[in-house]
């Protein structure tokens, strides 16, 4: 297993948000996590990537055999974890290219690889832009500063392409995107699919899954995965909503 989550419980302040979450993700697999608002989707993404403000009270998260929860956010990134933010953060005055180069080199350094010089880095950037069918207009600007919603999400995907994570978590990447932007982002994600790269696609709507086809679909509700299935589960949810599963869950 690449990622193994067992009985994960986490609090925000006094409130328990995750109440015994289990999830296994194998190499190269794409897992969709769907669920109603307030089910704990974003909390799960944040706990995986090491954001402060969440207290893990029970359970474990193992990433390629390592205890992920013991690591700082940057150490998780060095291991190959990547979070595409629901709301990418603006860094005024910090040039996007400079930011990407610093990020990539810090990851390379942590792996004992040499840092890329400016020339090799630009070559790499061009290559990645081509794969994603993006132009370089975002690179000259400050990180996310003044970007439109679509530009921010494209920038996230571009970062992902460059940093080549082993496990990418896409936290509601589809929120706030129109259909064209959604397609660009989804095409980017699909271009990055590989047998070595796993993804967790967190989404509220089935729409994104029309473009990114998952291997497994999970329903997260009240802090637990209450149903798992193939991609047809997403279609069923689209048709019937979440209510029927919640009712079945309660009945059981």
């Amino acid at each position, binding site marked *: 297993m690449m990622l193994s989550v067992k009985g994960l419980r986490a609090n925000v302040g006094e409130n328990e948000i995750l109440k015994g979450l289990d999830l296994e993700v194998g190499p190269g697999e794409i897992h969709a996590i769907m669920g109603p608002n307030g089910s704990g989707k974003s909390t799960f993404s944040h706990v995986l*990537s*090491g*954001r*402060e*403000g969440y207290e893990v009270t029970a359970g474990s998260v193992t990433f390629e055999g390592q205890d992920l929860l013991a690591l*700082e*956010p*940057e150490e*998780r*990134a*060095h291991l190959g974890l*990547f*979070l595409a*933010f629901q709301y*990418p*953060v*603006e*860094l*005024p*005055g*910090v*040039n996007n290219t*400079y*930011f990407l180069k*610093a*990020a*990539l080199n*810090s*990851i390379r350094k*942590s792996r004992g690889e040499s840092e890329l010089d400016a020339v090799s880095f630009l070559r790499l950037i061009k290559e990645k832009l081509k794969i994603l069918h993006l132009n370089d207009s975002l690179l000259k600007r*400050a990180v996310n500063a003044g970007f439109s919603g679509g530009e921010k999400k494209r920038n996230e995907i571009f*970062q992902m392409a460059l*940093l080549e994570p082993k496990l990418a978590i896409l936290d509601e990447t589809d929120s706030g995107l129109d259909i064209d932007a959604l397609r660009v982002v989804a095409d980017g994600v699909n271009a990055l699919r590989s047998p070595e790269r796993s993804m967790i696609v967190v989404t509220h709507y089935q729409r994104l899954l029309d473009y990114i086809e998952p291997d497994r679909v999970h329903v997260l509700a009240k802090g637990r995965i209450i149903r798992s299935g193939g991609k047809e589960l997403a279609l069923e949810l689209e048709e019937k909503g979440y209510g029927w599963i919640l009712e079945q869950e309660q009945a059981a």
Partner: protein
Amino acid sequence: MTSTQAVDDIVRSEYEHGFVTEIESDTLPPGLDEGVVRAISARKGEPEFMTEWRLKAYRHWLTMPTPHWASVHYPPIDFQSISYFSAPKRPEDMPKSLDEIDPALLETYEKLGIPIEEQKALAGIAVDAVFDSVSVATTFRSALADAGVIFCSISEAVHEHPELIQKYLGSVVPHTDNFYAGLNAAVFSDGTFVYVPEGVRCPMELSTYFRINARNTGQFERTLIVAEAGSYVSYLEGCTAPQRDENQLHAAVVELIAMDDAEIKYSTVQNWYPGDAEGRGGIYNFVTKRGDCRGARSKISWTQVETGSAITWKYPSCILRGDDSIGEFYSVAVTKGRQQADTGTKMIHLGRNTRSTIVSKGISAGEGQQTYRGLVRISQRAEGARNHTQCDSLLIGDRCTANTFPYIEVKHPSANLEHEATTSKISDDQLFYCRSRGLTEEDAVSMIVNGFCKEVFNELPMEFAVEAQKLLSISLEGAVG
């Protein structure tokens, strides 16, 4: 690790340039009276006019009260406990080349990471290194002489160009201007003189490194730069100081004069000892810097990066006298630990169609206190004057403060003034975003701060900008425990 810890670590980071060079000093005993003023003048072998100039300033200074209006706090200074003159031994035996310079001094520069030889070779910068109060190294003199540019110590200029000194010294900042300018005029030790003749573009960036190095010796530099019509000069000033126990007073005066179509660019990177964790032993930096755009279409641009000193109190200003003249002020000031800074600028619009730009970036961490104080004055005849002011403050942690006092006086209805001000914090969101991309918290802070200062760094000459960024990173070092 939490942001609070990060800030504590920043605050605790030791002053990197704290070391002392052992050089014998020929120092006057502490105290100040007319005899001391005469003694300073005599030791420098000054002509009579200079001695009289100093005495006049001293007598006026005695009548002036110490100013208390700035938002800085410090115990009263005992001016009788300060020694007003310190020179390396045998000042008459000045070295003619680097070979003759005390190896201990060269070592000092090595420790600071500013090897003179490398600098002059790589960057083509003429370095007039002021060590204590007397210049001990001047390079590239001949290249400048070929262009007709005079670049020497003020003491030298007093002897060799007395007519220029008599004409310009004190013409921008008179000894009556303020308490510390008065004191400086009476006891100034040394400094730099630059004269760029008409139509000459100075062939290199001029640079002076100041150091305060003798215990208890107040430093009173005097800098005078005159740019004749149609000339251009870029002057770089950089400072660091060895660690000391007692407070060291620094009251410099810088005067810039730009005639018709002349341009002076004055850049400063200041990194004086800020004191220990309780603020003990840091430098008091009370400086008067003023530029006079005397000629039409002249331009004076101040760029400063202030990371050091226990207390900084300075307002590089422009008097926009000539029609269509331009004044600029770009500033980055960092206060951490117990540092206090009250800094800003004055743009005095006297001429028609005069323009000024103010970009001030204040960064406050730990228990740092920072005040931007600025004045934009549009006089009755300054038709069509314009000013744009931008004051941004960045707070790191929750124990620091940032204040902004922008004064505006407008006496002509055609004036066009813009003022923008922001206060922001480095957010946890920003730090987490950077860290989730693999950057350490320290790198993230450094990157965000450098981004915040970018507009100002862009104004610095290239090699200085690199130094400034390095300095900023050093200042905020220790963000990771």
